[in-house]
């Protein structure tokens, strides 16, 4: 008999969910998301300000002494579920999870603290300058070089960077790895939007050409801080994937009840029913995995790396399956640009790759639980 953390939703979490869901229902219908994604402003920064500052979501992870809400990863997970359900075009994961977690892990006194207040208040937005596909446990990146307080280098595929006011950049200087904060704006920093698979959360390439930077973590803590951010991101991304999967399931169930073929709703055909039952069971299991990862992260449980690998390996595949079933069971209409299914498919597939694909998380798990690979 072992003891596991509470995997249910608390009343506080339910209330937070309700307010986020209301905001998104009001400001972020999928038709608006679709319209926006081919414009020059793929992010809805008005929505972001309401979510980040108005509802205080950007500061959930930030302690109250820095102006945050002093909540935990559990609440962040609930917000991500809702953002996933809406494929909302806001930089929550990049700013409020990845960059904020990195800064929080830098430790007090190193200057990271100063950044946290404006981020928590939703006044400023940050991004963590690593390729979005980087898994926890990856080697410290070598793509950016520090010369004193100047950074030079290039990082491709950074999530949410195109709307960031500041970048948290892992870079290596003469004395070893460090995390640096760089203000976006001057000519030494170029952030270039990429044409992205995920229309609702594009990636961008960051080029630094002697950009002015402030070091917020030195050789003793930078690698750990970066890894902590990647673990937090991966653990919590599972909740976003859960939200994506849930929405796909709900949309599909709704559709098959009203689409008639052969004189019956297609949801009455047993093969369709059984596939949706299996999908429901998969979503149910994804919820357990995502909740456990968030709960472990919230209490810095020593099992957090196992929980994260399990949640990522599992929820990535459930979200992709849910989106693929959503397309298929909608038939032709689900394959058109004017139906939201493709937005979810693209988000789900991008999430699968983000922060480590399932096979990479399974490989990490093998080491964590002592199931070594075959030696050839």
């Amino acid at each position, binding site marked *: 008999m*072992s*003891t596991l953390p509470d995997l*249910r939703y608390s009343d506080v979490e339910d209330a937070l969910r309700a307010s986020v869901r209301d905001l998104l229902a009001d400001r972020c219908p999928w038709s608006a998301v679709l319209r926006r994604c081919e414009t020059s402003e793929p992010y809805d920064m008005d929505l972001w300000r309401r979510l980040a500052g108005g509802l205080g979501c950007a500061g959930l992870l930030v302690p109250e002494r820095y102006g945050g809400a002093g909540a935990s990863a559990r609440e962040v997970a609930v917000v991500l579920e809702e953002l996933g359900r809406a494929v909302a075009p806001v930089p929550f994961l990049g700013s409020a999870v990845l960059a904020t977690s990195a800064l929080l892990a830098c430790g007090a006194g190193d200057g990271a603290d100063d950044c946290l207040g404006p981020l928590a208040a939703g006044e400023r937005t940050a991004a963590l300058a690593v390729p979005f596909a980087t898994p926890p446990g990856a080697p410290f990146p070598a793509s950016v070089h520090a010369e004193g307080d100047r950074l030079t280098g290039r990082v491709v595929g950074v999530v949410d960077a195109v709307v960031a006011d500041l970048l948290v950049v892992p870079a290596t200087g003469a004395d070893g790895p460090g995390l640096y904060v760089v203000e976006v704006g001057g000519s030494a920093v170029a952030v270039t939007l990429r044409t992205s698979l995920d229309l609702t959360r594009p990636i961008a390439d960051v080029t630094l050409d002697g950009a002015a930077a402030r070091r917020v973590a030195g050789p003793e803590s930078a690698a750990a801080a970066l890894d902590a951010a990647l673990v937090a991101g991966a653990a919590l991304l599972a909740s976003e994937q859960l939200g994506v999967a849930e929405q796909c399931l709900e949309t599909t169930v709704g559709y098959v009840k009203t689409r008639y073929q052969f004189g019956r709703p297609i949801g009455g055909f047993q093969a369709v029913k059984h596939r949706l039952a299996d999908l429901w069971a998969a979503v149910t299991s994804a919820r*357990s995995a995502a909740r456990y990862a968030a709960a472990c992260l919230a209490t810095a449980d020593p099992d957090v790396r196992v929980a994260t690998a399990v949640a990522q390996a599992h929820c990535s595949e459930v979200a992709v399956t849910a989106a693929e079933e959503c397309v298929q069971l909608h038939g032709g209409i689900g394959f058109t640009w004017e139906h939201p299914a493709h937005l979810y498919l693209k988000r789900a597939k991008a999430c699968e790759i983000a922060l480590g694909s399932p096979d990479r998380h*399974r490989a990490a798990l093998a080491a964590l639980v002592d199931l070594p690979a075959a030696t050839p």
Partner: protein
Amino acid sequence: MTATTSVPDAERLRALVRDFLATHDPRERLRFLRARFDAGLAWVHYPEGLGGLGLPRALQSVVDEEFAAAGAPDNAPRRNLIGLGMVAPTILRFGTEEQKRRFLRPLWTGEEAWCQLFSEPGAGSDLAVLATRAVRDGDDWVVTGQKVWTSRAHEADWAILLARTDPDVPKHRGLTYFLCDMHSPGVVVRPLRQATGEAEFNEVFLNRVRIPDAHRLGAVGDGWRVAQTTLMNERIAIGGGAAPRETGALGVVARTWRERPELRTPGLHDELLRLWVAWEVNRLTNERIRQQLANGQPGPEGSAVKLAFARLNQRVTGLELTLLAGEGLAYDDWTMRRPAGVDFTQRSPGYRYLRAKGNSIEGGTSEILRNIIAERVLGLPPEPRTDKDVPWKDLPR
């Protein structure tokens, strides 16, 4: 958000148990259990006089903890799942006063063992189509038919029995529910051997078995409704804490993997990790259900766990055989035996592989579970029904 137990009630109960323990000798097992029943400490949520005290069900754990801490004998609940889990709640709800007084005490103490005579060769997933006939004859019913998949029939004293009393009405409406003495003339029990070689189950032949009308449970023709209570109680009780990691067949194969590096292959590594993840996730889902139940919020997730377990246990045991390669070609023992239960860790890998095939059939097939999820959880339309208003005797079979 956590279940709260009224502290005064809990303390009063603890005192009651301690008083009881002080005045009864736990070494006289049967006498001790009977007295515990009579003191209302058997199932505290049952009425007074029927083994309970009319208290909330959540308080039962207080009583069980106290008795367990004192090292007192229990009523071997794991050996009596059908009686305690399914028969007792049905008798409590539908039984007459005489029936409750006659049956509940020996059921609880384990003096009388119970089995369930529902399924038939022609009525599996579609239980309501069953054909065993009960014909009224004076104060008795005369029952003839064949039942199947009956656990413990060969050691049971009593059975709950569903039989057809009116073939001229649609299938759900012509059934009646009986309590059947397994020692009656005409009851013949035969072991039903499985693919594993052993026989956990039985076939039961009923040849003009007489059941007094006094042993009818519920009204004539109301058997389907009574049976719903039995079936809904099938999987309610989940006690204890969270299960540990790497239980059952997965634990066996993970241990083999660690201890025998010469067997490892790259292709099986990925499959093992996939199964490890899925097994762990199923454990977490089970734990969520447990937490919700403790809080009085039962949900439909149990069916997700059962569906997943069946598939996983089948894949895990299949992987084990493949991993073992040549060793997987052997089997331990095909002798026809009567096992006390299912054990996924003590027998050979071949046994595990074969036995796991039953997981998606027993206790409701995976297909029926998917139907139930689709219709009751997701609200999808039912199958077009061609048999609903047809008299049973006219149904195609």
